[in-house]
């Protein structure tokens, strides 16, 4: 088992992490490339101030709460706090960054990390519950939405159990290996699913430029979809 853990911590970690970085880089490059080649002229006249302002306001989306989905929105926002802070700044992870990237990050204390981990797990459970119980959300959800939530849940839960031997029903190394492998699976999945919003978020507001429709475009879409008599 020790060998497997070493392998998962070593080459496999480097491999999956590189796949994630390159995959995300690929998305950024394609975005920038397509903006420059396809929308070059429009970029020059783009309302940058408005776009950046909107992007900033969406980072903390207090303004964008829609009545009726408030709890879901708030939970899905706060869910991101733990999901960003714990993987990056947990003491045990800092060692990994130092070993592979040679950077020293500050660490958050174990108490805070434990709290954030449990909080994130709770958020995942709430979100999952909403997607199952609320008819509106269930209608909007695809199979991948449930699977991705589970994929995020696994490393958090296994990581918490591995670091708290008292609550851990399984041997430490089994739990550790689960933690490592599930996190690595997540790395590979990120660039190819909607988890890619890690980087694509920053292009979201610019995508308005992609979708500026010509006058009368709606009629043409309807025509293409439903035949000539269709009205929008």
């Amino acid at each position, binding site marked *: 088992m020790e060998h497997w853990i070493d392998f998962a911590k070593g080459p496999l970690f480097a491999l999956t992490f*590189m796949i994630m970085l390159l995959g995300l880089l*690929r998305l950024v490059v*394609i975005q920038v490339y397509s903006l420059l080649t396809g929308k070059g002229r429009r970029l020059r006249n783009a309302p940058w101030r408005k776009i950046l302002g909107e992007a900033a306001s969406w980072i903390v989306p207090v303004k964008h709460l829609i009545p009726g989905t408030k709890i879901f929105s708030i939970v899905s926002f706060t869910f991101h706090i733990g999901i960003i802070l714990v993987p990056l700044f947990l*003491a045990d992870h800092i060692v990994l960054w130092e070993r592979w990237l040679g950077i020293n990050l500050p660490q958050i204390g174990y108490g805070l990390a434990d709290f954030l981990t449990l909080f994130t797990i709770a958020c995942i459970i709430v979100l999952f519950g909403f997607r199952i119980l609320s008819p509106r959300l269930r209608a909007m959800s695809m199979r991948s939405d449930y699977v991705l939530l589970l994929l995020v849940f696994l490393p958090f839960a296994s990581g918490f159990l591995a670091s708290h031997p008292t609550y851990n029903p399984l041997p430490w190394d089994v739990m550790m290996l689960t933690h490592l492998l599930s996190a690595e699976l997540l790395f590979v999945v990120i660039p190819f699913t909607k988890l*890619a919003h890690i980087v694509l978020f920053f292009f979201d507001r610019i995508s308005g430029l992609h979708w500026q429709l010509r006058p009368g475009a709606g009629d043409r879409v309807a025509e293409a979809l439903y035949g000539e008599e269709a009205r929008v």
Partner: protein
Amino acid sequence: MTDRTRVTKDILWALALAGLVAAILRLWFGLGATTALSDAVPWGLWKILNMVGGVALSTSGFTVGFLVYVLRIERFKPFMKPAILIAFLGYGCSCLALLFDIGLPHRFWHPIVMWNINSFLFEVFWCVMLYFTVTAIELAPLFLEKLKAAKAVRFLHRIAVGVVIIGISLSSLHHSSLGSLFLVTPQRLHPLWYTPWLPLLFIVSAMGAGLMVVVLIRILWARWYDPTSVFGLPAARRPSVTAVSNGGSVSPYDRGPEGPQFPAIRSMASIAGSILAVYAGLKLLDLLLYGGWTSLMAGTWESWLFLGELALTALIPAVLMAIPRVRRSPAGVAIAAGSAALGLAMNRLSVGIFGYFHDIGAIYFPSLVEWAVALGVVAAAGLVLFWVGEHFPVFGERPPVSRSTAGLFQLSYGSLRQLWKTALTNSLHRVTYVAVFIIPVAFILMYPPYRADSSPADPIRPARGVDIERTVLEIDGDHGGVMTRFAHAEHQQRLGDSASCVFCHHVCLPGDKSTPCSRCHRRMNQATCIFEHDFHTRAVAEKEELGGIHPENHSCMHCHGESGLESPTTARSCLDCHKEDMYPMQAASQAEDLMHAISFREAMHRTCVACHERSMLVFNRPDLSECRTCHQSLQPRQPQESTMAHRGGEGLGPM
């Protein structure tokens, strides 16, 4: 563009990207850490497969040029552009691979200004360089026409014949010289391949196989982009098509009405077949004349290799081309051509690697980096071939019309199927997907420190004492058979007896005073981790009487403290515990990193050269800092030794 070309291109991209990663690692870590080359086996895959083999396979430019411009065979004119393109790319990727093979790539231009007129390599260098330029000039009109530089194109057309003639003479010079390279070392090369006729055999086989390569690529191109031109009408085409795609499982005797281009291809393949038949005759005659016959009858693996390679290069293509029914089928011709190309590559590998190192007992198997670079440059050349063929009128009057690709904005994450549908129709998406997976995989597989972790790649041979007192040591760290004699006692005496141990034995194992260099510097080209973590966790638990096993017994905290951070930076200094038993302490306490020992090569050079450079000034002995002071093999050879006498493993490299 069919799905098959797409997949072919994806594979080429994967190989080329892996080659790129390998090339960067080679430049970053050096030859020793990334390749299986050594002093005993200095010529590996890159020189033999890419240079000697690759150049031989790209003779097309000169042979087709000879047929078209000197013999005036008009019907071969459509082959001229593909042939030149293949020659250009072949030479280009050979030179590129060689760039990674030479020790200091940034000095590749040295033979241009520093002439060593006694070397065959000097001639080869100049010919290859000039011929590469010639192919570039011959190819230039293609691009200039697109740029509408009419004047330049007219000028190039006027000098075309002259350029072709220069190209032909350069080619005939260096193709034979590549064979002459191996004449220099008669004792090294296996008698089956060693013959004074090597230059002749090299050029004849290269001419035949070079033509076959043009034939093969022409047929493949037709298969991909323009089947009717070679394979005839669609209905009649099917049987022979499958034969090409599954490498000949369908009998090549099926035939339908052939395309308009095929007769010219067939007659070119016939010419190549006859040249290869001549080559086979020469080879057999040579066996009889120079006594290779006995080695062939010996039944060793070399004799089987020789037979197989001769069959592939010459016998199979010549026989296939002699059968009328095979000759009339594109698939049959393609098989003959493929066999010849494969056989030629095998032949050069036999001469340069399999037959060349038979006497020293060293087993050479190229490292992953070598394979990746060797195949990567070829794949890159293939991609350039695709690109040029698709955008310029090389294989036909006008380039094949490429179908429009799906737009960039069709990115959709709705479902995996949708995702792949978009990805698979857009070449940018395909290439980037390939890159995202191939680059990390290639990196992990080839990054030298990872490889070293799993197996000691280049273990050191410890220094041996010539006498029982170890007054003189023989150092041959890399098993190369070239000894460096180190007068141990003499150095000790000169530097001040027992007080001087510390100068070289700077850090010793606990309890030891003169740990040998090879104990810590365990690998020739790479650093070694010398800190045994498991041993220490056990020892700490034992000494501190901790119950339970690691990590439950909290032995981690003993060295790493209670912060929970377990990394080399949080660990306590070794000397905290080993104050008493690590000798000599001063050097150990000054060492920045007691966890890693630098490579043996670096350790030796730093220790010896640094001291020699200081002493050089003190004692006014400039020779002390020269390489040959220690490396005896670099000392000028005695007159009687400079004859062709072979010196076994002790000699210099092959060149």
